[in-house]
């Protein structure tokens, strides 16, 4: 009872607050649902799903490309080894004769042209090569590092089959190009420089003799092929004669362009997303030996600094060096069979995005949610305000009607209020016929009249006769201020607020036949 006296709520305020509670409850409910479903941290969750899905697609494609190329390279080696040995046998010559007979070497290399072209097309690689352990001129300086062979490049390996593919001779005897109407690559040389070529020297190790060819193919790290400007990865397989002697290598390359075009990540969500295929050593991605694919916005991010792998949020990883930090996902890609001589070399295919981009995406996504919630809240409050206002209008009107025009039968078009007015009217009518002598209000009024002082009573009597304040002042020979003071006291004692109310009470009392004297 005390509290009710202290805080008085209007009906409209109560309704408004109820609406606000409803709005907040609904919004909280939505936020709880979003939180439970993982959408409240949408940025990171969404990024994780996107990166992992995209990674899965590229990983599958890359694994298939490298598996196919390795298998083709093994077949290529068998085919080339067999045909070279066969040609030499026809001439009653041996592999060793290649080292001393330049013309024979040129002929053997030239005759391998169609095999190289065949396997180049079949493998869908960006280049196919044969390197023989021989040189056309062993009188030249550094001849030990100069090896004869043939290297044909397909400049557009991932473009639809065309009747005129862009094929160049990168290494080999120029006559091969002339005879086959093949242009020489702008960086053409006659022979291979194997000064720093693990893809060649690793196969020359005689201790590998007993190993199966399938366990001997080797994937080089990505490197700029000597005297060219293109970064490539090479898959090389030794060329072995029937006695198991290695007399050269052959294989394919995966150019920077081929890798890029085959593994371009979807940049709709992050335009700086990129993919790396890199050797892994001690939990570090070796950038120097990696291939990269990514949009133009991503290219500037990459430098030759290795990236250290660390665990990140969710199932993502963090990749860092002194200059940059990325978030992404990687898996080791098995390039070699279990029994391979190079099985300990690990490669990872990673898909990553600059950390800043992920952070700003998360902030952006959550800010969006906060903005939307705030806007919804504001809209809810406005609607609650308007609704509560309009809801209360008929009630206020009904009260006005009851107060000001109790006899009029005016409708508010709100059923309950109209019924209330009707009820009160009916109540009023029945009172006219049968006035309750015990009416508390009237009794109180009468009682209060008696509490008036004589002077106040004189003023009251004149008010009851519908005199106004000025007339009363003249009648009683009192100043108008005195009359006002008496009037104030009268109102206070009678619990009324106006002269009209006073007259109304007097009229009701008269009508009910009660004496005010």
């Amino acid at each position: 009872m005390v509290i009710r006296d202290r805080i008085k709520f209007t009906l409209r305020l109560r309704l408004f607050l109820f609406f606000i509670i409803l709005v907040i409850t609904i919004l909280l409910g939505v936020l709880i649902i979003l939180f439970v479903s993982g959408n409240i941290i949408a940025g990171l969750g969404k990024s994780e799903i996107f990166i992992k899905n995209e990674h899965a697609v590229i990983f599958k494609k890359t694994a298939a490309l490298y598996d196919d190329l390795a298998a083709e390279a093994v077949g290529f080696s068998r085919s080339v080894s067999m045909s070279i040995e066969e040609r030499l046998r026809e001439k009653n010559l041996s592999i060793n004769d290649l080292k001393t007979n330049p013309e024979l070497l040129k002929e053997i290399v030239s005759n391998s042209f169609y095999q190289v072209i065949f396997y180049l097309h079949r493998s869908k690689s960006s280049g196919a090569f044969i390197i023989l352990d021989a040189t056309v001129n062993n009188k030249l300086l550094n001849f030990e590092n100069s090896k004869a062979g043939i290297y044909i490049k397909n400049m557009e390996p991932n473009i639809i089959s065309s009747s005129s593919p862009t094929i160049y001779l990168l290494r080999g005897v120029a006559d091969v190009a002339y005879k086959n109407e093949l242009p020489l690559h702008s960086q053409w040389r006659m022979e291979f420089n194997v000064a720093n070529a693990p893809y060649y020297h690793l196969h020359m190790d005689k201790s590998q003799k007993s190993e199966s060819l399938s366990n001997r193919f080797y994937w080089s790290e990505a490197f700029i092929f000597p005297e060219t400007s293109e970064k490539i990865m090479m898959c090389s397989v030794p060329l072995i004669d029937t006695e198991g002697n290695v007399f050269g290598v052959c294989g394919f390359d995966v150019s920077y362009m081929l890798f890029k075009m085959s593994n371009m990540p979807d940049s709709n969500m992050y335009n700086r997303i990129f993919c790396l295929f890199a050797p892994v050593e001690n939990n570090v991605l070796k950038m120097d030996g990696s291939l990269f694919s990514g949009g133009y916005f991503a290219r500037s991010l990459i430098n030759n600094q290795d990236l250290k792998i660390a665990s990140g949020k969710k199932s993502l990883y963090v990749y860092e060096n002194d200059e940059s930090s990325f978030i992404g996902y990687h898996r080791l890609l098995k390039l070699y069979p279990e029994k391979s001589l190079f099985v300990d070399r690990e490669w990872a295919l990673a898909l990553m995005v600059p950390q800043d981009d992920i952070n700003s995406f998360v902030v952006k996504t959550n800010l969006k949610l906060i903005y939307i919630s705030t806007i919804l809240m504001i809209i809810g409050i406005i609607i609650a305000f308007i609704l509560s206002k309009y809801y209360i209008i008929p009630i206020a009107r009904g009260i006005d009607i009851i107060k000001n025009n109790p006899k009029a039968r005016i409708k508010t078009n709100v059923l309950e209020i109209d019924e209330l007015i009707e009820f009160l009217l009916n109540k009023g009518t029945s009172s006219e016929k049968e006035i309750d002598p015990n009416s508390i209000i009237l009794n109180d009024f009468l009682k209060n009249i008696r509490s008036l002082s004589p002077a106040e009573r004189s003023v009251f009597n004149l008010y009851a006769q519908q005199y106004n304040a000025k007339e009363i002042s003249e009648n009683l020979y009192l100043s108008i201020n005195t009359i006002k003071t008496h009037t104030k006291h009268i109102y206070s004692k009678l619990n009324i607020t106006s002269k009209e109310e006073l007259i109304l009470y007097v009229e009701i009392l008269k009508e009910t036949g009660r004496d005010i004297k």
Partner: protein
Amino acid sequence: MKKYIAFSIICILLLTSCKGDELLDAKSPVTVNLWHNYGGQMKNTMDSLIDEFNDTVGKEKGIIINVTSLTGSATIHEKLKLAVNDEPGAPELPDITTLYPNTALMLASKGLLADIEEHFSEEELSLFIPEFVEEGRLPDGKLYVLPTAKSTEVMFLNTTIFNKFLKETDVSYNDLYTFKGILDTAEKYYIWTDKQTPDIENDGKSFITYDSLFNIAQIIYRQSGENFIVGEKLDLSSHVFKDVWNYCFKPSVKGYVAVYDGYGSDLIKTGDVVASIGSTAGVLFYSDIVTYDDNLTEPAEFLILPYPVIDGGNKIAIQRGGGMCIIKSNDKKEYAAGIFLKWFTNPEQNLKFVSSTGYIPVTKEAIEMTASEENVINDDNVRKLLKTSREMIEQYTFFYTPIIENFDELQGSYNKNMKKYAVQCRDEYFGLLSSMNEIDAYNAATENRYEEFINQR
């Protein structure tokens, strides 16, 4: 009322001027696919320019240029043909492609090309060399091919070898400005190289090769004031063709000029020839090393000479190199493509491109910049080439080949037949040399061949 009309006009003008930019949204960039033929060493330059565009103007306006094909112009023609005819396995048409006007004719006839003048104002086009722009205007009067980088033909000379020859003979660099001088030099070079191996007769080396016999013929005709192509046919009945025969066929039969299906730069790489006449755009294919048959190598220095002129002829050279066109797609992509082309042909970018490719700039300002900002050009051969190109722009008149549908066919069959005749007669000539002197052997090997050639269908 007048106020309202004026206000409406201003509003319409403002809306029209903003129309293009409204199409683009930096937050949702439009990807414009590009096919180009700037491969090999030109690729890096093109890549870095595209990077620059994507990271600057592209990023600001919401345009990403994405190269979806990098191949020679012949392959681009083939692929466009496949795509236009919707053949199985055909690629999707790009939004911008490099091409020659003849290829553009094929696309324009199917209504696939956007009018460049819808994207470039008259004022913007006036900054270009007018002849370069006009080459891209097709018979319907519309400009479909915007010149992005042009080329002409010049003579590349390996001075490392030539200087050795110069020391021992009475030839001069001054001889190399006319066809007659070059062929006299070629004869002397053949004799000089033949003498290097006294024990083997008639094994002299060719001095020069021509990348395009067809262009040689066209230019000789023009220098003589005539047209090689009349209507849609070759005019072989003109007396000028006799000059062409003497400058191309005769020295080829005698071994002074090498007949080769590929580019002269290949024969120069192997030391089989000392000089070649070919496109400026091929400059990067000239290696700084000559590799001989025994894998012996020697460095190669080059001199780039203007296109030779026939005796008494006009200084006329061919204008080559296509341009880029916008393939019709939607307003947004076409507008974005226009923005890229404006940026790419801007003098600053144009200079960057030509500085490392061997092309000639397409705007007057960029041509002037090749002289004033020579220091930005790193490649020696490109610097020499641009110097020669500037001289030619000053002294020569350029012409471009007529845009006719059967152009490729005419060019292909002429080149093929001329080479076939030359090779047949050369083999016969060298066979006869063992039994008769040079004049008789030549006459016997080439008897009636001229008439046969000009009368063939």
